[in-house]
């Protein structure tokens, strides 16, 4: 960035500054702490200067917006052209309940849907299965059948709106239900837009909502890549997610490293299946966390784009620039929300959302202030959405591309995070890849260690969390909990019972038999068979039971 002569001058000036101005200032007022660190315990220097950036050429690191390596953003005009999609994660109770919430959000200016499913659905169980006891609709909507999916999107034109679905282990089944629902709405698959999360690797690493062992799961994921590339070309068949890795306790650097390592693992599996990398890579999308530490978070997004572009082009030989783009969704950090003085969470969420926007995200969910203890109520959700609208329309941050690009601190942090990611890639490689590292518990252990350290820092007050370990007040919060009603549960159970009674038994049985055969034969794509089973009114639980029989169930290595 600087000529050698300039940097020698600068070095001399800085030495002088340290010896005079700084020295005096420190004598008059010592710094508040011996060491300053980020939310991820990364040490931060007092001052960043061009000297921190001098070792690599500017063009290679940054490039122009919309050009390799996309550090400054994937679009040349960024938010001047189109604002990010404001996509609020929503779901609770029955399909009817959530359908109402969706319509509420659309009426308040939301521009994309995002479905949260309940625990039984996430694990591939129907609402009436014994393990589902007590779990119906508490942290998402219950979808056990095509009928439920139809009700969920009743009155919403899925040809017009894009839908993101947070579903992993049974992602293929839920996606098939969405496709079946669209079919009944008369919308062709080719015009459907949306995302299934479908990122099973981070489940083994962090969120622990798995069903099958890794190899079987990966095969199912690649089945969706292949099916999507051919039949649903505008659909993102995966959202490679660092969000949950971070929520489980990882640092920003670990989130970045493990997410991208997972991403490359998916690409590897796709290529090994014989898919052309440029046929499916443009449909890979990402999902990162937006945590408290403003600059570290912005740097993380920028480093992620740079690494992904380089790896896709140079390691995987992708030719299509669309394959190089890291398109990402972002969500503010749920784990940062406090149950104490909950209204203050609105401020945290604002800063986190700002980080995601300055980091160049393509879509964003902002958490509601009451989420530390419940599924958010309507008012809380509206405020969260308003937060994004203020950033977009009042703050001015959307007026220019990558407004902080060139900041010495930010660029140095971006470089540091990138280097940390590559160090982790090497370690994972030493284990023999991501799945081997999961089987050995390496990634899980790294995350658990960071979680424990973070908690210890709070305990020891090395880290201040406002309202939790400092600035505490004794007050009862006034929040109105959202409750799932018994009536919703009864309606759902009634619908399931009716479905089982009324469906064409022969067709249903045959469809599950065909699915079983597909599971047993690696050369057959399971997706079309799952879609047929869904059309034949097989339930989520029934389809997953067939797969559980064929693939077995994963057991995690013990760690704590």
């Amino acid at each position, binding site marked *: 960035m600087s000529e050698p002569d300039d940097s020698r001058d600068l070095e001399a000036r800085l030495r002088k500054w340290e010896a005079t101005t700084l020295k005096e200032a420190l004598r008059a007022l010592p710094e508040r702490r011996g060491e300053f660190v980020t939310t991820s315990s990364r040490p931060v220097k007092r001052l960043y200067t061009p000297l921190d950036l001098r070792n690599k050429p500017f063009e290679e690191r940054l490039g122009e917006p919309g050009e390799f390596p996309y550090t400054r953003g994937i679009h040349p005009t960024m938010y001047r052209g189109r604002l990010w999609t404001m996509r609020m994660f929503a779901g609770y109770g029955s399909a009817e309940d959530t359908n109402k919430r969706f319509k509420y959000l659309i009426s308040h200016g939301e521009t994309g849907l995002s479905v949260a499913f*309940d*625990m*039984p659905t*996430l*694990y591939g*169980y129907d609402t009436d299965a014994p*393990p*589902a*006891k*007590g*779990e119906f609709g*508490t*942290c998402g909507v219950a979808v056990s059948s095509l009928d439920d999916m139809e009700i969920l999107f009743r009155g919403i034109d899925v040809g017009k709106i894009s839908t993101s679905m947070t579903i992993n282990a049974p992602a293929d089944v839920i996606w098939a239900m969405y496709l079946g629902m669209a079919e009944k709405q008369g919308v062709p698959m080719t015009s459907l837009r949306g995302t299934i999360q479908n990122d099973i690797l981070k*489940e083994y690493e962090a*969120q*622990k*909502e*798995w069903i099958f062992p890794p190899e079987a799961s990966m095969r199912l994921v690649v089945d969706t890549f292949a099916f999507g590339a051919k039949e649903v070309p505008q659909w993102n068949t995966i959202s490679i997610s660092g969000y949950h890795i971070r*929520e*489980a*306790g990882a640092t920003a650097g670990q989130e970045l490293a493990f997410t991208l390592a997972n991403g490359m693992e998916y690409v590897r599996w796709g290529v090994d299946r014989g898919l052309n990398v440029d046929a499916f890579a443009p449909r890979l999308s990402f999902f990162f966390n937006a945590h408290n530490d403003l600059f570290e978070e912005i740097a993380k997004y920028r480093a992620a784009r740079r690494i992904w572009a380089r790896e896709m082009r140079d390691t995987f030989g992708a030719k299509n620039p669309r394959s190089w783009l890291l398109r990402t969704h972002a969500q503010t950090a749920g*784990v940062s*929300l*406090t*149950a*104490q003085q909950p209204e203050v969470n609105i401020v945290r969420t604002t800063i986190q959302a700002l980080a995601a926007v300055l980091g160049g995200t393509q879509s964003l969910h902002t958490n509601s202030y009451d989420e*530390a*203890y*419940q*599924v958010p109520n309507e008012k809380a959700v509206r405020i969260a959405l308003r937060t994004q609208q203020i950033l977009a329309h009042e703050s001015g941050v959307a007026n220019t591309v990558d407004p902080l690009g060139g900041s010495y601190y930010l660029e140095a942090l971006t470089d540091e995070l990138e280097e940390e990611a590559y160090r982790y890639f090497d370690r994972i490689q030493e284990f023999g890849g991501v799945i081997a590292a999961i089987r050995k518990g390496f990634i899980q252990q790294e995350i*658990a260690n960071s*979680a*424990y350290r973070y*908690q*210890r820092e*709070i*305990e020891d007050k090395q880290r201040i*969390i406002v*309202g*939790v*370990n400092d600035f505490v007040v004794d007050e*009862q*919060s006034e*929040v109105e*909990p959202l409750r*799932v009603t018994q009536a919703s549960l009864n309606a759902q159970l009634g619908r399931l019972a009716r479905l089982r009674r009324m469906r064409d038994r022969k067709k249903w049985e045959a469809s599950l038999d065909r699915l079983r055969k597909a599971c047993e034969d690696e050369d057959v794509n399971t997706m079309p068979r799952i879609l047929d089973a869904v059309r034949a009114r097989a339930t989520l639980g029934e389809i997953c039971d067939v797969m559980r029989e064929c693939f077995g169930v994963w057991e*995690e290595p*013990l*760690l*704590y």
Partner: protein
Amino acid sequence: MAKKIRVLMAKPGLDGHDRGVKVIARALRDAGMEVIYTGLRQSPEDIVEAAIQEDVDAIGLSCLSGAHMALFPEVVQLLRKRHASDIVVAGGGIIPEEDIPKLRKAGIKAVFGPGTPLRDIVAFFEKAGSAKGA
């Protein structure tokens, strides 16, 4: 050597979010306790059976999915049925304020919400263990 305090840490229901339960398991271990961790996706029956065989002083339940009202009280009821209500039960997770009195009434001795200092949790189990051993 003092009697070792034994605590069963369990995640009832389907919720897989185990960051909290693992942090607490470590903190209890670091405080010198023996922690039996049962892993994810345990039914109340599984938990009570394990607690009895392990002869623990207390059970810590963690649930972030909102199913606590269905699952926590059932653990207490099953312990009673098995003549083991001397085993203290505590719970934690994403729990609305208004549920806390109901859980207490159902026999959950303590409810730890987000932001509870680890030392409070450690102190609770220490007390539970020594009260029972005495």
